[in-house]
């Protein structure tokens, strides 16, 4: 990750020679939203990471940490305030119009709310065919055939193409959303809390489906969720965000067994395990106070106001810790990461 830190003066070129195995490289992405007079919400505040081909990168954090905004930056549904998003080596933030549109075929998104994300007045067939029509991929009989194939792939009856979204349950609608995302054979799918709105018994169906599709179509996922147990299950690597910053990125086993950031450790300690014997032994690392406002994030390390091991006043309240290598394929942004294991 270290080589992805460019300073503002030496901005990288528009085209990076693609690193084998890297599908997306995000360099210092910033997204500020104007909020009132002379104030901005710093939703994403300088995040760099990569998404490797064929992997699932999990993205977790609490509400307001910027994870959904970051997902939208990656697919350029939102323009960045600054920074670069390289997709297969090409900077999406510099592409406009038709060029961007063609690139975006490769990047699709699945949304959280299966009720709000499907047009109630369109048939399921039309919803799924819309991307095919927009890009002029197929028409007529071939289009119908492709729609039916997509329905079958996501486990729905192929003859449901003439029905409307309201005739389907939440889980089935999420399948429709997935079929639409698959229509153009994308390389990357951004899954933005795809199962949070679903019932427990349906969540596993969708997770298994996403895993099967990944294998079948060699998909890469950016999987955004607030539920660390789901993220850990589905992801190869996990990135934890806090207040607009990436605080830790690691293999999903490592993040669970040896978290190197105090926030990751606190987040893990809060997850309820469906086992009463484990629950009775659980030690919750209670974070003091509340998440500060992203309008005015704390100085230095954004987490220092709630951190159990922060040195304040001192390095933690003064210096923003960079994401540094803490182990093989494991980066964390903490001045005292070596203390996390013993003192948090």
């Amino acid at each position, binding site marked *: 990750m270290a080589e992805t830190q460019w300073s503002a003066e030496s901005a990288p070129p528009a085209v990076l020679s693609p690193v084998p195995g890297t599908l997306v490289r995000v360099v210092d992405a910033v997204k500020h939203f104007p909020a009132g007079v002379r104030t901005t919400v710093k939703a994403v505040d300088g995040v760099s990471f990569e998404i490797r081909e064929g992997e699932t990168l999990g993205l977790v954090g609490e509400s307001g940490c910027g994870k959904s905004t970051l997902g939208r930056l990656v697919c350029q549904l939102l323009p960045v305030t600054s920074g670069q998003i390289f997709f297969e080596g090409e900077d999406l933030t510099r592409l406009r119009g038709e060029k961007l549109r063609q690139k975006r075929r490769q990047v699709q998104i699945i949304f959280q709310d299966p009720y709000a994300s499907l047009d109630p007045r369109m048939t399921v067939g039309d919803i799924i065919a819309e991307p095919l029509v927009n890009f002029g991929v197929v028409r007529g009989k071939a289009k119908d055939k492709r729609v039916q194939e997509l329905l079958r792939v996501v486990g729905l009856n192929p003859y449901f193409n003439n029905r409307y979204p309201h005739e389907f349950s939440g889980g089935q609608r999420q399948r429709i959303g997935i079929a639409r995302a698959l229509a153009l054979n994308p390389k990357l799918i951004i899954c933005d809390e795809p199962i949070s709105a679903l019932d427990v018994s349906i969540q*596993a169906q969708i997770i298994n489906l996403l895993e099967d599709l990944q294998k079948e179509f060699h998909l890469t996922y950016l999987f955004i969720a607030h539920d660390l147990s*789901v993220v850990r299950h589905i992801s190869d690597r996990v990135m934890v965000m806090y207040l607009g910053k990436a605080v830790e990125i690691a293999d999903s086993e490592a993040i669970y067994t040896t978290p190197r950031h105090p926030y990751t450790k606190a987040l893990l300690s809060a997850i309820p395990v469906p086992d009463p014997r484990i629950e009775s032994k659980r030690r919750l690392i209670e974070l003091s106070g509340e998440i500060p406002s992203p309008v005015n994030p704390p100085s230095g390390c954004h987490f220092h106001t709630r951190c159990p091991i922060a040195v304040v006043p001192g390095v933690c309240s003064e210096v923003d810790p960079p994401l540094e290598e803490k182990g093989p394929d494991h980066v964390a942004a903490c001045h005292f990461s070596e203390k996390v294991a013993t003192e948090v």
Partner: protein
Amino acid sequence: MAGPLLQVKNLRTNFFTDDGVVNAVRDVSFDLHPGETLGIVGESGCGKSVTALSIMGLIQQPGRVVGGQILFRGEDLLKLPEEEMREIRGRDIAMIFQDPLSSLNPVLKVGYQIEEAMDAHQKFKQRDAQSRTVSLMEQVRIPAARERVSDYPHQFSGGMRQRVMIAMGLSNEPEMLIADEPTTALDVTVQAQIIELLRDLNRELSTSIVLITHNLGVVAGICKRVIVMYAGQIVEEGPVEQIFESPQHPYTWSLLRSLPRIDANRKDRLRSIEGLPPDLIHPPSGCAFTPRCPFRLEECFTKEPPLEHVAAGQRTACWVTMKRAYEEMGAEGIIDTRPGAASRVRPPADEAPLPIASEETVG
């Protein structure tokens, strides 16, 4: 041990909609003992919230309790006139809801709203009520309670608002608190704090707590006993350890295996429950879980299983039970989660195949 604080007997609640009569709660019976923490789990539409609202006498049109008894300290709440019920509500039985923001009045200070809850029942003198408000807010661990009494709901975070709701619920020292998905709208770190708070309050005040949730992890963290509901009925009930350790109903068993766990091997495939819960306008005959059950028998389609004792304190409504599924149907090794997979009982000929769970998606 003293008798139960609350006894729900054969409760039936229906909703009379334009599409037909929805049998939301179908013959539910359970007891709640003083000081107990009881969890009611199930998916949306299983009847867990409607059960709670029926106890509170808060079922709105077009719904109606159509049968059964709700005995609170031996008195049937369903027979009480509305004025008496209003006295019990808030004073003896309090309820907190999922969304604290919509349950609080945005234009009134939170301190005033907590006081108001006490004024309504006049269990405490007005002067006492004022001083109690601050100590209640301290009890639910709202920092700087003395200053925050005069803040408005929008000045509180989601977790703090839920604490205000809990303070309000406890203000009249009720014997019983019903918490309906109290942590669902909250982030995990805040959720964990609210769970700890409820657990401590139960210990300190010995208030009985009925916790309604879809989150089995939350139940494991706080409850001593749990009721699992499916399609308006109790399918399983028992001590928490027992239910999690050795569930006997295939629904409970499948549900526990469909959850990704933070402490599990992440390479394990999740066992999904294929299909959807039934439509309660036309509840299926026999056991309601049969269409989705991997261990069903022929009789499951026609005969409704009674809730029967299967172990100490554990009751299960199933003709098969997991004990038999393990011994005779190879439950240990089943990967195929299709309905009827283990017992090789396919759907009756006239039953249309389930729309989802087609061959392609089943591992």
